[in-house]
């Protein structure tokens, strides 16, 4: 059994607003996916993140002095909006969860294996 990170990626402007029509549809889809993951025993951890603008970056230099800056680490349009950690027997099983994840959350997901 290997753990895989399934991360969800969307525009940095993305705001979680549960009152919109899209969220009214996506929310229950993701809930159902979470339930399926938990029922199968593949669930390790998962959750949605607040917008990237809520992130803080900490960085240590050679002297171990730590600086602090506002904003997400990667200055890209696409930011991680949430993730799951799932346990799967092999790559194809992990990809099958990834397939269900992207359908449920209606956005691209990235599947990436943890180191052993």
């Amino acid at each position, binding site marked *: 059994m290997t753990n895989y990170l399934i991360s969800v990626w969307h525009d940095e402007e993305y705001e979680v607003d549960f009152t919109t029509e899209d969220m009214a549809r996506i929310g229950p889809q993701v809930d159902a996916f979470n339930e399926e993951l938990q029922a199968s025993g593949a669930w390790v951890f998962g959750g949605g993140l607040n917008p990237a603008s809520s992130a803080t970056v900490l960085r240590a230099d050679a002297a171990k002095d730590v600086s602090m800056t506002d904003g997400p680490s990667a200055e890209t349009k696409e930011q991680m909006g949430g993730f799951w950690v799932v346990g799967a027997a092999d790559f*194809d099983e992990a*990809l099958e969860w990834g397939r269900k994840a992207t359908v449920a959350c209606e956005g691209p997901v990235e599947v990436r294996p943890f180191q052993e």
Partner: protein
Amino acid sequence: MSDTFEAVYRQEVGRCTATLIRVLGDVDLAEEAVAEAFVIAAERWPQDGMPPNPGGWITTTARNRAINRLKRESSRDDRHRAAHHLHTPDMDPDPDPELDSLDAFVDVVADDQLRLIFLCCHPALAPDAQVALTLRLLGGLETPEIARAFVVPEATLAQRIVRAKRKLRDNHASYRIPRAAELPERLGAVLAALYLIFTEGHTATSGDALVRTDLTAEAIRLGRVVVELMPDEPEAVGLLALMVLTEARRAARIAPDGAMVRLADQDRVLWDRELIDEGHDLVRACLRRDQPGPFQVQAAIAAVHADAASFGQTDWTQVVALYDQLLALRPTAVVALNRAVAIAEADGPDAGLRTIDGIDADQLVEFQPYHAARADLLARAGRAHEAVDAYRAAIRLTTNPTERDFLARQLDGLVDPA
């Protein structure tokens, strides 16, 4: 001996690697073990004679050496298990019972090759990585040969292969044949890879021979296995038909002195009627399904050629119509080039050259057939000076010596009378 040894190496290396990956659970270990076994074979076979089943001999030797080394290197189980980077579910790790009879061995090896081709063509890999891995592991091609086939630097291709293997290993890709539901998605990449192996064999990038029949035969053999496994996939049947119809012309494509003979000059008596009949049957079978795809249309083009009693009697209008269809399905510069060559036969070299001039040449400037086709049409159109330049460009890009000789003779014929 060395010719025979080379032939055995080409024929067996991919199959042995496919089985060793299952046995050892690791691609790199399998490649090393098979290479080591061939080194031992090169020492022993000249003295002891070639074993009756060379592939079985290589597989057993490679497996024994690899397992013994793994056991030697550390407390056996831990290290052995640590080597299992690829998942090999529900498989007997010890192939000995399977090696007892040659027939059983061949069956197991076919399954292993299918496992390997689906692994190499995993949809999580980029297409260029898929075909590179397939050619490397199943075709047994060396990295420089693959680099030439792809027209990329060797270092780029080597890195592409290393990264692809690493991705499969890090992700714990399983070594298995996909389930029925997964097959259609996986098929496209597999067919593309097989066709690349075939075309590599059809015009070999290395060695003095124009054709590497081991590669064409291997591509056709794997194509048959794929069709057997997926008889309802018309594109799989289309690819097999295309390869079979192309292979049928092989004897006529090479003169007794090894020189290349163009389709126009081929002695059609030398065409393999049995393969042509098989190809026709396959084309009819897949066209009946009415789900046209690029391989089926290319097979239909090959079938039109096979029908013609002579080059002049070819139904070029039909060929051009099929290329129109192919260009709609696959709008690439290479298809556009082949269509232009067909137009030249239907409507004359000037019409062909006008069509070629309409193609975006940037994509074709390093593509040898582009210059070879232009050179031929320019010569036929009486534009000798331009033809000389085009022949020189084609010769510069030709790595196969037989093909280069052919182009040099065409160039000489153009220069001498002037």
